[in-house]
């Protein structure tokens, strides 16, 4: 929840600040209070929120899939087992299509990356203020709940992938093969028939080009995911800002209902419960859909005015679009990882 006199940029900055635990410049360890303190910690700091949520979601993934794997039967699968199996099969097929080598570790790697990243991206669809508000109410100042909007998280995964690329390059191609790949491309002095005297400068040139290309792989892998999710998160924050500002403006009448002119939080909780009950009644066929929509509109207007409803619509629209983005980015990360590792497995 936004504080008392928070400006828009403060609101945004607050939302983009990780909960950082690290070593202060004076040497003692503790949480950073504000962006400057976090920056001053340098490398020796951990984004506790990023780690917490990514580990939690990773464990959710492991638990979900492990629970199915444990009792996987060859009989007719139940609904949940079916869903998990179809994901596994889909990943397996994708990997088989792309990966030319024979390495049984690639497919589970791809599965882990895809589902884990998807779960982390999915956190982006939780309204931006909810979890930070919960955290705030238990005394945690900063909370960034989408791990993939933290460049450390995405680059951390990309670096792990990069290490695997290097490992398999050396393992499959051999040191000589890998070096030849780095130095004899794209200008091959051997094929050009140049005397050996001219080889070293060309090889150095090739090496510089290829190393850039090699390093670009993890960087693009990590930054692509980060950039997409960060931008998405930012737009959610902006929408939240717009509709918070709008509701502040439109809800003056509402504010005047309360004696101190401040809308208490229980009002919003009551509103959320009312909306939930309305939707539930519709699902139980007690309310017709037409009436439900009308009721929802009235409720939204009542709670925050037109701007609130507009904000809701914007949020819904962007969220609907963002579902595609988060799925696609998880898929791209997975596929690129597989492609890079496939390239690392290729002989020349």
């Amino acid at each position, binding site marked *: 929840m936004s504080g008392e006199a928070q400006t828009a940029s403060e609101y945004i900055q607050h939302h983009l600040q990780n909960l950082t635990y690290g070593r202060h410049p004076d040497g003692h360890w503790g949480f950073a209070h504000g962006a400057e303190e976090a920056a001053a910690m340098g490398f020796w700091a951990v984004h506790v929120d990023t780690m917490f949520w*990514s580990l939690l979601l990773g464990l959710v*993934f*492991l638990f979900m899939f492990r629970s199915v794997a444990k009792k996987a039967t060859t009989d007719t699968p139940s609904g949940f087992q079916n869903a998990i199996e179809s994901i596994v099969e889909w990943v397996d097929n994708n990997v088989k299509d792309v990966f030319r080598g024979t390495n049984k570790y690639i*497919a589970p790697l791809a599965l*882990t990356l895809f589902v884990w990243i998807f779960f982390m991206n999915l956190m982006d669809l939780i309204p931006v203020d909810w979890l930070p508000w919960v955290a705030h109410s238990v005394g945690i100042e900063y909370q960034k709940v989408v791990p993939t909007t933290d460049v450390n998280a995405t*680059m951390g*995964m990309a670096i*792990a992938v990069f290490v695997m690329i290097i490992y398999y390059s050396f393992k499959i191609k051999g040191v000589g093969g890998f070096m030849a790949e780095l130095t004899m491309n794209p200008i091959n002095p051997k094929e050009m028939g140049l005397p050996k005297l001219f080889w070293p400068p060309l090889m150095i040139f090739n090496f510089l080009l290829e190393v850039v290309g090699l390093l670009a792989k993890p960087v693009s892998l990590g930054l692509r995911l980060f950039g997409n999710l960060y931008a998405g998160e930012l737009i959610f924050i902006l929408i939240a800002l717009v509709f918070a500002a709008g509701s502040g403006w439109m809800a003056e009448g509402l504010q005047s209902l309360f004696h101190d002119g401040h809308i208490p939080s229980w009002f919003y909780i009551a509103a959320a419960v009312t909306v939930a009950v309305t939707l539930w009644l519709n699902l139980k066929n007690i309310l017709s859909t037409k009436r439900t929509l009308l009721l929802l509109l009235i409720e939204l207007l009542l709670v925050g005015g037109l701007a609130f409803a507009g904000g809701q619509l914007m949020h819904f629209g962007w969220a609907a679009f963002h579902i595609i983005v988060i799925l696609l980015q998880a898929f791209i990360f997975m596929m690129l990882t597989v492609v890079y590792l496939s390239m690392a497995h290729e002989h020349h």
Partner: protein
Amino acid sequence: MNINLTLILQSIAMMVFVWFCMKFIWPPLTSALEERRKKIAEGLAASDRAEKALDEAKQQAEVLIGQARDQATEIIDQAGVRGNQIVSEAKDDAVGERQRQVRAAEADIQQAASQAREKLRSEVVSLSVKGAEKILGKEIDAGTHARLIDELVAGV
């Protein structure tokens, strides 16, 4: 947006998760899928076989039904022949019996008629003798007139 230790920790977390997945999630799931695929393939093959067997059984059944039909026709034919035979035998029996009865009746009738004729004749003889006695006024000597009387009797 600071690069810090999170980078390394995230790499470690990822490697651990990937390891867990490789070890405890992927193998059982894929082997289950593979086994089910095999099972389904076997099931489909079995159903193919069953279908073929069904076809064969149907053909066999048709042959059997044909045979049974032929047999039934034969039996019916035989029965018809036998029936006709029985009927004609019965008819022959009946005709024989009728003829026999008719013959017996005819014999009875003839016997009765000849008895009656005999009786009549003897009565005629005695009547004629009595009549002649009366007419002649004397007794006809049966011995002397026997030829005459016999002629008379034969004439009756």
